[in-house]
């Protein structure tokens, strides 16, 4: 095991997969000369050359469109969209094309494409650059959506995504890049579609993904000191959504809080909650609680931005109210 940052974990996954499989290549905005707008692909142009590390014009439609076509043609492209907000310009490609071709052509076409994008807030980038849009894509059958929270998961999931035969949207969180975690030295995969217990507990199940996993863990720590034992489930993959660990945990704790950076209304938490209702109704001892982003376009001002995103304090308060 080595202690590396989330950023390094993503880069290592890319590098290892590119060394393993010559069909894997990177294309996107500023991935080459610049080294990635979040420095993920630093030095990779030098290592792999411009055939495999391809700077593109700022044109998300064609970045993803060409990625889909290249994947159809037998390559394993990793397209970088800089941020998920720009992914909206490629949403037709992801939703109307990547997600549909395998089905519409009855299995004749495969789209082993990975689209990497940065999501979430926290860097004072204001309304159009701070969104958590995962729900838009997780809604679509045919797409897979993963959002790792730790360096271990970031590396294992990206490698799994690159080897997957379906289109995968891989959303990173810019605030996670500097966090460090233990990662095995050898090759390993984290399966897509497998939620993970990040902390065990018995009184309340806190469900989160991406950066909110860390908020949940922090809250669990505080709650633990106050005698409330919280279990933290990291969804890791939003589609296909693995509810099994959530349900199992919930059957034990009978209380659930979903912590989500996205907006509450129609958010992922709503889906998680209703699946708990559907699958574990008889285990509910209290309504399911959502700690979610404020329903506003993200403001620029630092204090306002902080108010718009759930904090460990919010989760602690919610848990105390829930457990009573």
């Amino acid at each position: 095991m080595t202690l590396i940052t989330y950023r390094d974990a993503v880069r290592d996954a890319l590098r290892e997969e590119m060394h393993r499989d010559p069909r894997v290549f990177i294309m996107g905005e500023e991935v080459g000369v610049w080294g990635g707008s979040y420095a993920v692909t630093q030095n990779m142009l030098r290592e792999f050359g411009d055939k495999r590390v391809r700077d593109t014009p700022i044109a998300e439609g064609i970045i993803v469109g060409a990625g889909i076509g290249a994947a159809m043609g037998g390559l394993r492209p990793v397209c970088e969209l800089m941020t998920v907000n720009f992914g909206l310009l490629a949403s037709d490609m992801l939703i109307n094309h990547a997600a549909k071709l395998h089905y519409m052509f009855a299995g004749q076409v495969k789209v082993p494409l990975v689209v990497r994008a940065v999501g979430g807030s926290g860097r004072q980038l204001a309304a159009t650059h701070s969104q958590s849009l995962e729900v838009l894509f997780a809604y679509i059958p045919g797409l897979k959506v993963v959002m790792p929270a730790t360096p271990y998961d970031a590396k294992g999931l990206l490698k799994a995504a690159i080897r997957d035969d379906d289109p995968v949207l891989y959303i990173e969180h810019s605030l996670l890049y500097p966090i460090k975690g233990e990662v095995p030295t050898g090759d390993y995969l984290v399966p897509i579609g497998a939620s993970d217990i990040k902390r065990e507990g018995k009184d309340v199940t806190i469900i989160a993904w991406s950066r909110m996993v860390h908020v949940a863990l922090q809250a669990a720590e505080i709650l633990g000191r106050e005698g409330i034992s919280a279990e933290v489930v990291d969804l890791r993959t939003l589609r296909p959504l693995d509810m099994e660990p959530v349900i199992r945990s919930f059957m034990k704790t009978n209380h659930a809080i979903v912590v989500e950076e996205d907006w509450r209304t129609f958010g992922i938490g709503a889906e998680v909650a209703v699946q708990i209702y559907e699958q574990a109704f008889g285990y509910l001892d209290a309504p399911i609680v959502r700690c979610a982003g404020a329903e506003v376009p993200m403001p620029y001002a630092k204090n306002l931005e902080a108010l718009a995103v759930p904090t460990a304090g919010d989760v602690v308060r919610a848990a105390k109210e829930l457990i009573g």
Partner: protein
Amino acid sequence: MDLNQDRLVSMYRQMVLIRRFEERAADFYREGKIGGFLHLYIGEEAVGVGAIAALEPQDYIVTHYRDHGHALARGLDPKRLMAELLGRATGVSGGKGGSMHLADVSKGFWGGYGIVGGHIALAVGLALSAQYLDENRVVLCIFGEGSTNIGYFHEALNLASLWKLPVVFLCENNLYGMGTAVERASAVPSVAAKACAYNIPATRIDGMNISTVYEAAALAVAHVRSGQGPYLIEAMCYRFPGHSMGDPERYRSKDEVDRYREQDPILMLGKQLESQGILDEGGLEQIDHDVSKVIEAVAVFADQSHAPAPEALHEHVYAHPLNHREGAA
């Protein structure tokens, strides 16, 4: 690049096949056996047949939703194409795609696409794979003039030109994007002129003349295959029926349609074959007769095929059935 006599006869036969196929499809539509939209290729046969004739077997085709003619020209099984139109399990796309989404990847036919312009981006990606893998493939990307006002067209031409990708852009300019005349939709009505903006060589040709189409396509394919980057052909053509079944056709006069019908590409190639002494009237009639027999069998096959099994509903959403707990930590 002359076409030999056999090639011309074969192309004539393909055009007749397309014409009769489309007519039978229209009948099925009227009988209520084809649902959704049905876009007929009648009148534009020379473009598809002529251009596709210039491709090699390893080359790829990506096209728009008026795709029956291209599929037939590429040699896809007409029975399975008609079955797809009828939504049957024997269809090329298993009955899940329908008229707009015909595909047979084994023949390099990567599909018809229903989102106007979207497939132009995919074609560029396929060309990228061909270039990356050094496969000596050319991608023929067919689209209508109506899609050249969409961002994808411009993004795709830009990237293809920038990266010198092996793609032939073939615009079927039938003068109307649905019911909107090209002059009413494009500030630059010449699609060939738009290619200049991306430093892509382009030519505008008479798409009703199959020899012209074939020759232009052959030049374009050669250019692209040589690694010099993309090429664009704007083939001027005309569709005789409406945009799709049930088009009220308020945007054009019957006279206009009649005038273009005089240039019917099948009629013109027939005359050429006769005047060059390749086929006499009896020979042309024989082809028509043979094709009609084929279409009869096609219709029977399609009509008698079964609808997809209910289990097909959940098949092919993902490449592998989701078994996502497998190997979970």
